[in-house]
């Protein structure tokens, strides 16, 4: 149930992100749409790593190795999401900097005014 809800939430967030990316004309909002899409994917990964009633995969005094094996969530998706988040930031930063340069050139923040290259 938990997984399912999170997956659907992730799905909706991705759909919203894609919709924002495709329907908004403002560059900043497009990038926001992108980060929503990213967040959705991250949620999806975390959901996939979840096990019912799972705990954090951290060894502490209360939980021994056997407790980890029987009760901890999958650490791999966490690791993947961590990487993905950082990469997402990198992409967002670059996109924003490009958006600034686009604005500096065309003096318009709207995406459909920024299409000199075509065909």
């Amino acid at each position, binding site marked *: 149930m938990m997984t399912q809800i999170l997956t659907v939430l992730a799905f909706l967030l991705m759909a919203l992100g894609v919709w924002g990316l495709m329907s908004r004309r403002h560059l900043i909002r497009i990038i926001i749409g992108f980060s929503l899409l990213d967040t959705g994917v991250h949620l999806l990964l975390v959901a996939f790593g979840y096990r019912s009633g799972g705990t954090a995969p951290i060894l502490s005094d209360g939980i021994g190795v056997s407790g980890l094996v029987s009760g901890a969530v999958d650490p791999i998706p966490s690791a993947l999401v961590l990487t993905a988040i950082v990469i997402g930031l990198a992409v967002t930063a670059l996109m924003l900097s490009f958006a600034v*340069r686009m604005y500096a050139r065309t003096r318009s923040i709207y995406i459909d005014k920024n299409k000199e290259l075509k065909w």
Partner: protein
Amino acid sequence: MVSPVVLIAASLGFAFLYPLVERLGERAATRIALLVLAAFAGTTAGWTVSLIGSGVALTADTAGFVAPLSIQLQVTAVDALAMTVVTLLALAALVQLTERATDRWHGKQVVLFFVLLLGSYGLIMTRDLFNVFVFMEISGISVFGLLSTSRDGRVFEAGFKYMVASGLASVFFLIGTAFVYRSVGSLSIADITAAAPVALASPVGVMGLLFLVTGILIELKPAPANGWAIDTYQAADPGIGALLSAVNATAMVFVLVRVMPILAGASPVFVPLVLIAGAGAFLIPQAQALLQESFKRMLGYSSVAQIGLVVLAIVIPAAGVPFAGVALAVPLVLLLNHAVAKATLFWIADATGDDASGFGGSLPASLRGRPALLVVAAIAVLALLGLPPFPGFWAKWSLVMGLAAGGHIGLLVVVLLGSLLEVVYLGRWLIMRMRHVDDDATVVSQRIPADFAESRADAVSGAASGASDASGAAAGAIPVGATVSLGLATLLMAGASVAALLGSGVGMPVLIVLIGVAAFAVLDVLRIPLRLQAIVAIAGLSWWGVSAVSGAALTLQSGFVLLFVGGAVVQLVALLARPGRRAGLVALIVGMVLSLAALTAATSPLEVFVAWELMTLTSFFLVVRGRFAAAASVRYLTFSLASALLMLAAFSLATAANPAFGTGGGVIGTLTTSVPWAAVLLALSVLIKLGAIGLHIWLPSSYAEAEDEVSSLASSVLSKAGILLLFLGAGSFAAPLFAGVALNQVLGWIGVITALAGGMMALFQEDIKYTLAYSSMSQLGYMVLAFALMSHLGWVTALYLAVNHLLFKGMLFLAVAGIVMRTGTRLMYQMGGLIKRMPFSFVSVLVGIIAVSGVPPLAGFGGKWLLYTALIEQGWYLQAALALFSSGIAFLYLFRLIHSMFLGQRKTHHDTVTEAPAAVLIPQFVFLVIIIAISMFPNLLIKPLQTIVEPAFASSVRWEGYTVISSLGYWNGNAVMYVVIGVFLAPLLWLLAVKGRTYRVEQFNIVFAAERPHTPQSTHYAYNFYGHYQKAFGRLLDPWVERFWSGVSATAGTVSQTLRAWNTGNPQTYALQILLYLFLTYLVARGGL
């Protein structure tokens, strides 16, 4: 061996430390960077050498744990080879980028360059799905960072689009990875592959893989969802363009290679899916590129198309097509071939600093003044087009063969069509680059306007007065970096070509051709004058031809060797008349002759095809040398390569149906296919080369606009290649097509209509070389007609006509060459009255036209007699009548030719022209003597021809002395000669006896009521000589074919325009397209709605 992981660590470490290194100074730092890259290249090359053939892979697990636990890196021989090429290209790229005139790369740019390279290494080596994602992002982000180095401000817009697209692709990939991990529980590609048939066959697994593969495909920039990539190519620094298509794309392809086994294992739906994607990605951009005005954008389209082809090639083995050799050989060779060639073109764009594609606008500064750059550009374009001797050729051959063998006829069509489109736009660029500075590249209007346009004629006279080729504006010098990198890439391509040649097993003839060309190219480099080169070529070719033919039995092949080599050697003498140097001329002629000889020696379809392509190439470069040949050579290249592609299709279909196809070797009719379509395609291919009606529009302009000596060679020698191929493929053409109509009957009609149409068009030309070119077309039509008879007499006729045509067309073209050299014009109405100034040329032309028109007693009549006898014998009456009619037409244009040049009133400014140089006259008179000899003794020629034909057909004529007797009639050439001499001498003596006193009068002393009503220039009745004929035929003479092909090209343009409009430039549209792409793949995977 060095561990693969060290390469990653080293490139990354160097990238991190580069700011420190730069403290040593910018120059020193780049030098060190180059050294590091060289070390990388050494490492990867070392891997290649030790891994190739060993079958093992170099594996490195990270973190001290084995594969599923940790990330594994692996290098196979294929990977190592690809990495070597990528590293070498990166090295060349870095030289180019750090040593160019403007915008030299330094600091962070070099750092990002190394990061990009690292990303590519990682993509190739990693065997972990999520790690692929990381390296994809590394490559992507470093590219985005580097994009900002372009001077073009639009690059940010393009980069933004790129980021949106690649962001979506990453998301798809990540979702796919998530699903795959959820289903399989591992990220190691080996594990996933093993588990795929079970764990991923579920709907969830397939959908996950769908996301994964869509992500990868989008990263490969597939049409029709690739407008963002194209925009980026256009706006980016060409150096980045080179990196993108040579380094980044090459590495990305490996991701697909890794994932493909998973996909194929999980569901049968993925192979067709990727196949469709590859086909679309290949064909669509080729069409879109047609009308590009920006060279970089055009290259972008070409790049994505080539990657599409590679994708196609990757999937084909998975579809169950057997390949010789390594399974990945074809895509790998295509990929690396593309990488090197495309990088070269981008660097040339950078070095020359202009971004015009040759379409629309004007492409400035010709490359003629820069032979080295020209050679490099030509190599790159030819390699990209998949022409021999470059590696792509062999890959394309195997690919097409594989497609046919697998029954993928639709894909075959896609590949061939796409290749043809590529020929058009890349060829156009090359030609526009190579053209003479004076050439405005419009197709010469073949009817001269009524105002007697003189300007063009003046330009021609400039050419005739010996202007050297070096007149091309040698603009700014090429930067050092570009020189080094282009040199490196060219070396790489050359090395790969030689390796591919040696590995192909059929490389010997190619090698001989290449050595021939290279030897004379060296002479050019050594600045040996043309005359000396010609002498060397004459000696060499004669020796070679004699040694090739002597002792051999007279067969079709040896006969044609004699024809090709002999014809060329005699005509090479004419080059002695040209002082100075002409770079490449002799080399190309020798190459053409050798490739023609290779055609005769071919014993397998592949060898035939290689020789055919080489002949096409060498002759193309000969044609393009002409001063106004740009437009003509675009046509020449397009049609010639269309012909080659048709031949390729024919061969592949025939081989697919019968693997033993064409392996007989050495016998007439070797290429016997039982597949009607293959036969039709082969016939079409040959007909294009023979300029058959409807397919001829390339022929007149190419023959006419080439240099004068080349025109004669092309028309007399080269054109016979098609005839040879007809004979080689004879076995295919007799097959019934439909409703009892055999292919050869169709060929016959095409032949005779060509003969008639060629003659008709020759009638109305004002340009002497166009007249002769159309005449060649007409004569080739006769040969096709005679061949199509498929009878003894028919084939003897075809060969007889071929020999005869070689002789007289050589004479006529050379005579014209001499005249053009002296008068400086090709327009007939600007000549006139030259008989008194150039009597020897007159004699040559006179004998030539008598031989063409078939007026007894000269040899031409023999051909006519044989032809009509053969035709009537076979019951082809209407064809016979039409052939006779068109020979009357021939008489018309030939008279016009001799009249307009030599007779009538001479122009005052031609009063001082002198006879053509001896070197030009000598070959004409050699031919003349041969013509007289075979006229007197026709059995000298006909009997050997009979021996050639005998293996195929029993003789149907008999000889009584000099009389040849057929079932219908007879002809005694010897007696005719004597009778003619008799009836000629008698009146002559009579005239001499009774004429009384003869006064020679001055020019213009004509009976005009003692007046001279016209100016000297207009007294000569020559312009629009057969105007009444034109009037009589009216609209029938309209250039229908020209119009048809203009229509075709306009349609292609419209299609291109429509497809182009798809790439609207709006990032959101591009995103929409990518989503649509996802949706379509979903639909395909679901099997439609």
